[in-house]
């Protein structure tokens, strides 16, 4: 009896992973289930059971947070993100390719090929997960989307002065979150109207222009950042006007950190060679790191449900 009590005490301690409300409603029955499935003479929770309890508790907390605090608009906003952002990315990359081709035609510089080389793998990184998710292969889509996310995040940590890498990293990590924690791009396509598509495509193309203009030396960083801010604000207004407002508001909130870092990258693009500025480092610490942590937490906890890996043995 004492042995069972020790086990029960330890199980009760593990229930701290669950929200108080869930513990209050289901704590006693869970203890009953845990003790009934324990082996004779068992004194401590087994590690897989302890991990399973912790993960189950975190999932329930995350679901409560997502459904209660933010409302179902969050999952729809993520669904729109999973559909719209890869398309926007591809447009930006194609515009980049076109700009380079045009620059090459004008200057005849063969070195520009090196600038165009990453376009193809980056296009694939955007298109492949989207195509997999569209066909309902969610796990595969998430796995493939992890590749660019990991790559950009490594670059962002390696060179925190590059706001662009930090922005790319957040965009890519959010795409993983969007694929993992939302009903997916098909749902996103249903939420988006034709006008939303117009806003997304126009914002992608217009937002990329200042960056290219600075790189090609046609614009100063300050002017580019102002132009980018104007595009971002217009796009935000466009999203609010063309989609259900709760979804648009949440999508805008998700995009704030990566868009801010993109703007910062544009602002400092012409001094990029000179090395990191105080502003870059501060933004990395204040904007990038918390945004990344939040995104990863939502990714890990957002989509709750039984997982074979955790839910079964043997």
């Amino acid at each position: 009896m004492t042995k069972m009590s020790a086990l029960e005490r330890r199980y009760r301690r593990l229930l701290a992973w669950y929200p108080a409300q869930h513990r209050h409603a289901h704590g006693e029955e869970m203890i009953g289930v845990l003790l009934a499935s324990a082996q004779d003479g068992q004194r401590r929770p087994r590690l897989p059971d302890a991990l399973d309890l912790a993960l189950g508790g975190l999932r329930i907390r995350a679901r409560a947070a997502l459904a209660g605090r933010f409302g179902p608009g969050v999952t729809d906003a993520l669904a729109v993100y999973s559909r719209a952002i890869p398309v926007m990315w591809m447009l930006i990359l194609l515009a980049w390719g076109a700009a380079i081709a045009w620059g090459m035609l004008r200057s005849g510089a063969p070195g520009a090929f090196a600038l165009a080389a990453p376009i193809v793998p980056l296009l694939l990184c955007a298109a492949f997960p989207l195509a997999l998710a569209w066909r309902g292969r969610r796990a595969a889509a998430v796995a493939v989307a992890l590749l660019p996310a990991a790559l950009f995040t490594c670059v962002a940590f390696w060179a925190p002065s590059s706001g662009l890498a930090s922005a790319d990293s957040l965009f890519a990590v959010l795409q993983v979150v969007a694929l993992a924690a939302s009903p997916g791009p098909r749902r996103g396509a249903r939420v988006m109207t034709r006008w939303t598509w117009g806003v997304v495509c126009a914002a992608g193309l217009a937002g990329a222009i200042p960056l290219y203009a600075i790189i090609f030396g046609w614009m100063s960083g300050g002017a580019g950042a102002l132009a980018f801010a104007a595009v971002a604000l217009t796009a935000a207004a466009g999203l609010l006007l063309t989609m259900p407002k709760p979804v648009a508001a949440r999508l805008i909130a998700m995009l704030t950190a990566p868009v801010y870092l993109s703007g910062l990258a544009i602002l400092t693009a012409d001094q990029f060679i000179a090395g990191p500025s105080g502003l870059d480092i501060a933004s990395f610490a204040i904007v990038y790191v918390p945004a990344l942590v939040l995104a990863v937490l939502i990714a890990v906890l957002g989509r709750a449900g039984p997982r074979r890996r955790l839910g079964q043995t043997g």
Partner: protein
Amino acid sequence: MYRLTVYNDDVSKQTLQEPTFLILTALAAGPQHGYGIMIDVAQISGDRVRLRAGTLYAALDRLRGDGLVDADREEIVDGRLRRYYRLTPTGSRRLAEEAERLRANASVATSRLRKLAAGFAGGTA
């Protein structure tokens, strides 16, 4: 309700994960308590799927949120609370759809395998 309308069209097209399918199947026999569901799921799956308590309660929380499962009644056994869960009409409809989908797939596979076997038999004769 908004949550349901959000998810219904997408979730109903998605295939149920096996543990979810098995939990709903366990409850199709009638209301069961948590430990009963765990035992039943192991039995139905020939001991292949063994749910742990954390996974089971996270799944029940989600299934209740989606309106597929609901609490039925409570009883005290040996001083411990047991809560029984039951399928809702939405839950039985969802399970029926999934069972039909699996049955259709299985019947195509079986009929093709039969033809294949007949082909082999014809080839060797």
